[in-house]
């Protein structure tokens, strides 16, 4: 019998039980499917629930165990995939009405890798249409409607990996995969109170994932803890011949003991004067910093290179996305998207010249060089994730989130990894988080620091009041 506590358990606990045959993968999958049936519709968390396929995979996992074949930490662990990852036999809608019947005959590489690791796919999570590639202004810019935050259903989850955030927070899956072009893993992780990892660009294969902006897209885990993110990243990271942009850089994710006094930790301050910043979010961030100091870290307040990172990122993402979704403009399907401005994006993008694109690329290169210099002097950067809690479902996001993601533009323009960690609650008892950003390929260090923080705090164990 699977009790509700196991639906919120972390990977280590479930995996230990599965390996010792105290937890049946089939019973676990059934329990999750039951909870999905109960809560997913009201949260708009799933686009497709794959009950039959999940039970089939769970039976295979159980059969393997009976035969003495344990595949590793993810064997029998239930998960959910953002609905832009191709899954053979299941539709892949990209969250967009014109593509609601779209299906592929192959799995994305990350889906294959997780299946080979024994994980059980429960379904496809809802998302902002086209991962926000053609822009969006309201939370309802999604095929399944606005994703509701499990902490308060009148508030949004953040996007674009909206359903992945809701599913993990609500205990509808042990972990989910999200993607980030700019903010799409970190934002829902912050707003839903979960732990999310944006890997270095190229760390995880994107073969079989929707292309939003080729030089920005990353696939990463959203889970209950840094330790869970590590287990998932370990399974999905690494070079893939099907994705030429995936890196052959060695995947070194073993847990290491952190010596706080030896680390050079840069601190990006909370901009309390920014329009939309909430005092409660500021207080939660300061409390997280106090915890890090208490652990022995010395935090050095820094300023980041003053280059037009947000401008470069926004122009390049716009141009790449308009190109990526050219077919929707050509056949008129772009008019079936929920966002009323999406059909005009190609017209707006026409103001960008070829020279502008090359210039933006050259500035991006300078930005990378400056950040490389920055990380020669610092091991990690601590920064707020968002300056406020999740906005209401019907909020105009231009108004509700008027400030820029503090380090999101630089992080995504430079392809840097970041770990989102919950650090308390803000207005209306909605979650607040902060982030750790590191140089390329530093996921192992970020996860070590995240685990250290989560050994000292219990914010990641908090559950929304759903039951």
């Amino acid at each position, binding site marked *: 019998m699977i009790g509700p506590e196991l639906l919120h358990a972390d990977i280590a606990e479930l995996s230990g039980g599965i390996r010792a045959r105290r937890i049946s993968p089939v019973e676990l999958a059934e329990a999750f499917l039951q909870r999905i049936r109960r809560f997913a519709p009201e949260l708009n968390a799933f686009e497709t629930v794959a009950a039959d396929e999940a039970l089939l995979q769970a039976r295979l996992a159980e059969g393997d165990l009976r035969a003495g074949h344990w595949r590793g930490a993810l064997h029998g662990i239930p998960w959910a995939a953002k609905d832009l990852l191709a899954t053979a036999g299941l539709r892949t809608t990209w969250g967009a009405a014109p593509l609601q019947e779209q299906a592929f005959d192959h799995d994305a590489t990350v889906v294959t890798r997780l299946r080979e690791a024994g994980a059980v796919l429960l379904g496809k999570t809802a998302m902002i249409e086209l991962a926000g590639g053609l822009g969006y202004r309201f939370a309802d810019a999604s095929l399944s409607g606005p994703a509701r935050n499990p902490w308060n259903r009148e508030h949004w989850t953040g996007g674009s990996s909206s359903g992945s955030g809701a599913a993990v927070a609500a205990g509808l899956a042990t972990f989910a995969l999200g993607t980030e072009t700019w903010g799409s893993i970190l934002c829902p992780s912050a707003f839903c109170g979960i732990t999310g990892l944006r890997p270095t660009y190229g760390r995880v294969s*994107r073969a079989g994932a929707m292309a939003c902006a080729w030089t920005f897209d990353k696939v990463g885990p959203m889970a209950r803890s840094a330790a869970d993110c590590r287990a998932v990243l370990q399974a999905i990271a690494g070079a893939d011949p*099907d994705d030429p942009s995936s890196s052959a850089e060695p995947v070194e994710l073993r847990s290491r003991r952190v010596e706080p006094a030896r680390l050079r930790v840069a601190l990006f301050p909370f901009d309390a004067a920014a329009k939309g910043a909430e005092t409660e979010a500021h207080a939660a961030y300061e409390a997280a910093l106090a915890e890090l100091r208490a652990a022995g870290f010395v935090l050095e307040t820094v300023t980041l290179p003053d280059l037009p990172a947000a401008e470069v990122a*926004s122009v390049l993402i716009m141009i790449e996305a308009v190109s990526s979704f050219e077919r929707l403009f050509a056949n008129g399907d772009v008019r079936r998207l929920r966002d009323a401005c999406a059909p*005009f994006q190609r017209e707006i993008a026409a103001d960008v010249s070829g020279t502008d694109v090359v210039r933006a690329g050259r500035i991006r290169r300078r930005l990378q060089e400056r950040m490389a210099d920055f990380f020669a002097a610092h091991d990690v950067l601590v920064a707020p994730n968002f300056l406020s809690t999740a906005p209401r479902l019907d909020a105009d996001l231009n108004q509700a989130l008027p400030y820029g993601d503090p380090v999101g533009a630089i992080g995504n323009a430079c392809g840097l990894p970041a770990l989102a960690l919950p650090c308390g609650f803000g207005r209306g008892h909605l979650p607040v988080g902060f982030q750790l950003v590191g140089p390329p390929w530093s996921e192992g260090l970020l996860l070590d620091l995240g685990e250290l923080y989560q050994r000292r705090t219990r914010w990641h164990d908090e559950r929304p009041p759903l039951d």
Partner: protein
Amino acid sequence: MRRSRRRFLRLLATGSAVAATTPALLARAAVPKRPAKRTAPPPPAPPGPPAAVAEELRRQRSALTDALKRIRDFPLPDGGEPAGRFEPLGPRRRGPRP
């Protein structure tokens, strides 16, 4: 060889014809036209976006203009490091990303 020459002559002739007719076309364009026969009215222009959408599009255009100004004004040296890296690719195992 003969065929090339014929083609060349035809091209030349076409060019000559265009050259010959251009002044006539211009002259004709200068003459006021007679009132056109009554025809069906042109179809109405498609309705523009609703006011709220038009306003948002204005905001987006303005944001893009500002971003482009910063990009265009940013000082860059002549030449310098390449913006992106090109690399040759080997054969794939499977089809491209969807």
